[in-house]
């Protein structure tokens, strides 16, 4: 085992830390939320300059050839800063689908454009009735005139409102829950018959409801009907990225709460001098470290070749960092008292980021059930 970062990885982490410390304070972020898109185009440009938008892509596609650990380092910083930009949606999910399943020509057309900051993607897979079941796809794709015609609706598509292109899953054959028979299609956001409506999630990041009525998709990623494996891998990479983000958020909540307990006085002394508060802070630290271990497990499992083992590890990790984030965030508010309950104060925003992470790509109950089905 080896927990050390390489020199390049340390450099990467440092540069993102510096960028976010300089430009992504809590006050600056409030301004970004108010932009039309709900995030900062200027920051997006800076991510491109730093090479973050091409991080996991091959060098021939304008990328860095980075792995899941590199993505982890970036996401951890984004978690600390509560970054609002569509990095997960574009680079990890949409870009991930193209990287995993796209043809050489598709990769050459799309990945460099993402890396340069000129193209944003979203991963339009989840549907309203599917909850977290990855195989529950009711949107259909039918062949017509050499292309495909899509019909259906997608729900809570992360950053679906500002994407230029959508990676849409649709069923080419089979029944509702059948993993076999799903395809992934590339659709222009402006395509005729595609309607989308954006809204904020609880953590102020954006998502959209998307409806598809006779939408022509010129391109399909990979073989028709064989996309389930890609979808699962994309979601796994998304979980790993969010795990790192959760760690960044937890670290911040933990350190803010620690600092607060040292400075807030009641009954003539800092609240942190009460043993019950000390123990609670210790429990938060324990949860953070256990959560961090699970986020590492997720990152290290993304490239595991054995699909069953990979799925198992990712589910364990999602449960682990999800529960840790819930505990840390609840205690962060509790130990802040009234001030922790306010919109003006940062802790509540981290709390809600953790909440959204926990309810994305399968909540604790979902992953527990998935693992429980395999107990021997």
């Amino acid at each position, binding site marked *: 085992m080896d927990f050390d970062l390489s020199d390049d990885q340390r450099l990467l982490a440092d540069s993102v830390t510096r960028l976010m410390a300089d430009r992504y304070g809590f006050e600056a972020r409030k301004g970004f939320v108010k932009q039309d898109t709900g995030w900062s185009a200027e920051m997006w440009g800076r991510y491109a300059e730093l090479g973050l938008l091409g991080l996991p892509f091959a060098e021939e596609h304008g990328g860095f050839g980075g792995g899941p650990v590199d993505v982890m380092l970036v996401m951890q910083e984004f978690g600390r800063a509560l970054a609002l930009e569509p990095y997960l949606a574009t680079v990890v999910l949409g870009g991930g689908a193209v990287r995993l399943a796209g043809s050489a020509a598709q990769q050459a057309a799309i990945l460099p454009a993402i890396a340069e900051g000129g193209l944003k993607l979203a991963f339009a897979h989840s549907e309203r009735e599917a909850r977290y079941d990855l195989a*529950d796809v009711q949107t259909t794709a039918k062949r017509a005139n050499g292309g495909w015609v899509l019909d259906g609706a997608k729900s809570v598509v992360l950053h679906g409102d500002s994407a230029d292109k959508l990676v849409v899953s649709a069923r080419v054959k089979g029944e509702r829950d059948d993993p076999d028979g799903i395809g992934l299609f590339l659709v222009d956001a402006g395509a005729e018959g595609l309607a989308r409506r954006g809204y904020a999630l*609880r953590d102020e990041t954006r998502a959209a409801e998307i409806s598809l009525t006779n939408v022509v998709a010129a391109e399909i990623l990979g073989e028709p009907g064989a996309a389930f494996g890609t979808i699962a891998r994309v979601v796994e990479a998304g979980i790993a990225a969010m795990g790192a983000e959760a760690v960044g958020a937890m670290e911040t909540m933990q350190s803010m709460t620690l600092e607060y307990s040292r400075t807030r006085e009641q009954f003539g002394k800092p609240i942190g001098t009460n043993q019950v508060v000390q123990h609670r802070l210790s429990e938060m630290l324990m949860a953070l470290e256990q959560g961090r271990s699970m986020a590492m497990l997720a990152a290290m499992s993304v490239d595991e070749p054995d699909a069953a083992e990979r799925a198992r590890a990712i589910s364990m990790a999602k449960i682990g960092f999800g529960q840790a984030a819930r505990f840390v965030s609840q205690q962060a508010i509790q130990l802040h008292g*009234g001030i922790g309950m306010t919109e003006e104060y940062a802790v509540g925003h981290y709390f809600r980021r953790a909440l959204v992470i926990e309810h994305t790509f399968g909540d604790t109950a979902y992953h527990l059930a998935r693992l429980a089905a395999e107990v021997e």
Partner: protein
Amino acid sequence: MDLRLTPEERAFRDEVRAFIRDNLPTDTRERMRLGYSPRKQDTVAWQRILNKKGWAAISWPKEWGGPGWSAVQRMIFIEENQAAPAPELLSFNITMIGPVLIQFGTEAQKSRFLPRAANLDDWWCQGFSEPGAGSDLAALKTAAKREGDHYIVNGSKIWTSTAHNADWCFVLVRTNPNAAKRQEGISFLLVDMKTPGITVRPIVSIDGAHHLNEVFFDDVKVPVEMRVYEENRGWDVAKFLLGNERTGIARLGKSRERVAAAKEAARSVRFNGRPLIEDAAFRQRVVQLEVDMKALQITQYRVVSAGAKKSDGRPDPLSSVLKVKGTELLQATTELAMDTAGPLAMPIWAQELAEMANEPDMLAEAAEQATGNYLFLRAASIYGGTNEIQKNILSKAVLRL
């Protein structure tokens, strides 16, 4: 010993249920069933309907409009009203200022304020906490200086729930900064929110709603006859009030209502190819909460029955048990309702939904409110004395540690 409701108590419960069913305005009922908090007008209208029936001033003596119920009947009523769900009686009026005036007020104060409080003609708020005085309430600094037949109040209060709706505020102020003990220099004043010099600043909470406020007092003139009880004895009044607040805070009916909402939603969402309501883990989580609610319900009846037999009028330290366990349950049940919503727990989309769909999307609306409830009720273990402070009370007053 018999833990069942007597036939009379059961009949009473049925009567309460029937009354709520027949009299709660339909739009209030429909909104609340989706998980929305009652609006100001909903709370006012419902309390007036209850008051007309003689069911608003539930803990007050008959001469002040109380219904003459036993402690058990009161708990039955509160729980049924919450579980309906119907707007709760405004606690500032019914649980706080009413009993305070009945215990400590002058005849003039009682006759002026009690009928209006019962009928919600005056909306009261609670001006206790300050930026530097939360758990340590006795550290409060807002000062009241006597000038002739007035006090001049200066300072600020924070976390004042519903101050933006309020007509009156009961305020703890420091009247003697030089008292030997901090608690001995505090007085309890009734302040008209329209008095010049009062500014209310909204505080938005993490559920995105406006419940809380900061209230600033800048040379606010309060007539001396608006002081309750003796000057510098306001701490006795506050202690009495907080004891009452703690008993009412368990809100078991609200927990019941949240579990019911979660079960309702679980019928129409799918998990592993079946309705979520059929999932064993979901059912066990529901049952665990029902077990905890049962235990709390019985404990609560024990505490109120014992309280009714006590003669010293002092709050039972066991009311801290109700506060801690009740708020833990509120938090666990709102958490269940949120988790039941799955991915729909995340969006803030009421407006978009209304514009998008031809008919109301109730599941989605209820999901958004489930998360709103969860977020706001993180405060349940903070307000009314934090749960850490309640455990300190138990350690000292009950365990004598």
